[in-house]
């Protein structure tokens, strides 16, 4: 019947859907893990793998390597892939094919990452929940939603909690939208790393160590991250002590950071609501560690802090010399913290009314002991131009 319906749809709309497209429904229960993995392997492009309602108990990671497949559950609290007893693989679900849509299901307690998509262009994550249910712990997996080395990424309407690195991490990718997600109790709520043309908008990042991170790191196959917009997000109460394993770059994130920009070329931060981030609402810094990679630029360039709503914050910073700093600034640090390091005349810029403070450092990697903290004294911009960025419209359209 389904095929007939499909054919009818084809005739009536002349849509370009493959004729073979079919829906395979997998219910939880006996043998569900095998049935599900088998469906993922045997799927044809255009097929839908539908997850029934309930809890799927899995001992091994799942993987999908067929283009154009949709994996769809009954809702992020209804169809649950439970990896609590996972014995192998580095993530709950691995996607290595293009044009995949993942929606309306949950991944709980994977031993490594939650859902990783690698080299998977034009991917949509919608209505996905990834959660480590024991709360923030260093033994939790690193990333919840983890697209990497991909062009065209949309992560929307999803929830991630408990990641020991980043809840939503987009790495070495381009043309990205991360919108309308809720990220809580992760080390980093959302992290955009070594990526270009990313729009992070309408998300709620709360109770993480740091809310929204935009990083560019050396020594990776894809570098020169930038052209990133952080717009209309709620970034509040990011006060969870850092629980990342020490070797990871996010282990250096100070508890209480709202937005952290490290290196990168072009980041616009505007129209966000910041409240109760006790170290800094916005922090803009150069890459801090030594590196040996001639392709790498460690400076934060062309970073614009536009108008934002800044509530209480900076009143309990995780910084050396906290007491003296608080005293000097009258009990709370101003919202923007800059290291002061500029490559050229292209460092931090601010809109009228944005206040902050600077460490007045001059070179990437310079010791904090040489900091000479002082108020931020920049001439505000009257206007600026910044390209509109984000995932291709076709990704959003797929959800309609």
């Amino acid at each position: 019947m389904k095929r007939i319906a499909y054919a009818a749809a084809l005739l009536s709309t002349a849509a370009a859907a493959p004729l073979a497209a079919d829906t395979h429904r997998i219910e939880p229960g006996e043998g569900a893990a095998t049935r599900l993995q088998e469906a993922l392997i045997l799927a044809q492009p255009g097929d839908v793998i539908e997850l029934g309602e309930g809890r799927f108990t899995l001992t091994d990671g799942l993987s999908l390597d067929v283009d154009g497949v949709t994996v769809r559950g009954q809702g992020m609290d209804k169809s649950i892939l439970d990896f609590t007893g996972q014995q192998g693989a580095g993530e709950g679900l691995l996607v290595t094919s293009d044009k995949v849509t993942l929606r309306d299901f949950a991944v709980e307690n994977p031993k490594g990452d939650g859902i990783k998509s690698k080299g998977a262009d034009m991917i949509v994550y919608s209505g996905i929940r990834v959660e480590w249910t024991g709360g923030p712990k260093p033994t939790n997996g690193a990333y919840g939603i983890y697209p990497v080395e991909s062009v065209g990424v949309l992560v929307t309407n999803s929830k991630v909690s408990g990641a020991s690195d980043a809840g939503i991490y987009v790495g070495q990718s381009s043309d990205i939208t991360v919108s309308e997600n809720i990220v809580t109790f992760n080390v980093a709520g959302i992290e955009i790393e070594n990526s270009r043309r990313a729009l992070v908008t309408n998300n709620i990042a709360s109770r993480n160590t740091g809310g929204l991170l935009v990083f560019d790191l050396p020594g990776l196959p894809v570098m020169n991250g930038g052209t990133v917009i952080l717009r209309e997000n709620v970034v509040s109460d990011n006060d969870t002590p850092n629980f990342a394993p020490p070797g990871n770059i996010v282990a250096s994130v100070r508890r209480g950071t709202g937005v952290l920009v490290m290196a990168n070329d072009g980041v616009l931060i505007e129209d966000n609501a910041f409240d109760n981030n006790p170290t800094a609402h916005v922090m803009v810094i150069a890459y801090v560690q030594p590196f040996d990679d001639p392709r790498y630029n460690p400076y934060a360039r062309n970073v614009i802090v536009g108008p934002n709503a800044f509530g209480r914050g900076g009143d309990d910073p995780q910084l050396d010399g906290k007491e003296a700093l608080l005293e000097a600034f009258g009990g709370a640090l101003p919202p923007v913290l800059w290291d002061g390091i500029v490559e050229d005349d292209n460092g931090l810029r601010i809109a009228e009314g944005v206040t902050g403070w600077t460490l007045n450092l001059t070179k990437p990697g310079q010791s904090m002991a040489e900091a000479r903290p002082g108020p931020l004294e920049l001439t505000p911009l009257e206007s600026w131009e910044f390209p509109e960025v984000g995932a291709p419209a076709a990704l959003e359209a797929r959800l309609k």
Partner: protein
Amino acid sequence: MKHGFGLLALACATFGAALADATVLDPEPVNDAAITGTAFPKALSEFAFFQDGRAQGPSGRVHPYALNTPLWSDGAEKLRFIYLPAGSRLTADGEGLLQFPVGAAIIKIFAFGEGADRRLIETRVLLHRADGWVALPYRWNAEQTEATLALTGGRIDIVTPAGEAISYAIPNKNQCKTCHSIDNKVVPIGPKARNLAAAWLGQMVKAGVLDRVPEGAGTLPVWAARKPSDAAEPLARAYLDVNCAHCHQPGGGASNSGLDLRWEQRDPHAFGIGKRPVAAGRGAGEYEFSIVAGHPDQSILLYRMASAAPGIAMPELGKASVDKDGVAVVRRWIAEMPR
């Protein structure tokens, strides 16, 4: 090198009797259509790679081979074979992967136990079809009479040669590709000229199934013949090349880590010295660098090799226990590096 032959002889000995029979009887030919077709044959016997499933006597044009440094898989005993269709041959490509004609197959049998307790667990095949390689896993039945397609893999409780009781994982079809993939295409991993004995390659040339013995053949050390006095570096680099580099190289499954563990990689930062982790998560443990010269106990690479915990352990697939010999060699290599 000598030891490589020893291993090969050992492999041959396991099917010695059957091999003799096969030369006497009119052997059933290998099913070329099963290799080159589009289906996934349900039973291993459909290929007719062997004249006797249990004894593994190879059919005509099925050539046993051994690797100088093999991939470690929970201590499994492995038997390796190459099938070449009639009138075709392999061509050498420097020290790298031998180039296989369409219609060729690579067969690897995994076994545990000795003597009467010896059990075939799984047989993995790589089929070179017109549109590329296909990797399929087959699981042996309890009676050891047949192996059937295990598209979704499986788990089986076994005791390793080291005496550890583990849940051994047969990979699913996608997991086969996770390791056997460069730039999202399935490729063989093992039969690189540098990891094959020059003498075996010579035999293949003599038999008319390889064009030449390339320069750089057999340069990887023979792992099973290693002595405590051997230099650690070539052993360790060979071990990492064979066990890790299929993912940890540009275009491999772990390319985004930036860690490149191939034998030919000469840049110390690229193969881990002073390199910070990227997406290691708790796999990084307490440590900051993949390798800290002179400090094996501060090196993430060794920490992950020495762990069997999912989420920490490397390799992520095909490992439920720790290769103590591999750990010891890599430990000695890092410890001997000038600090």
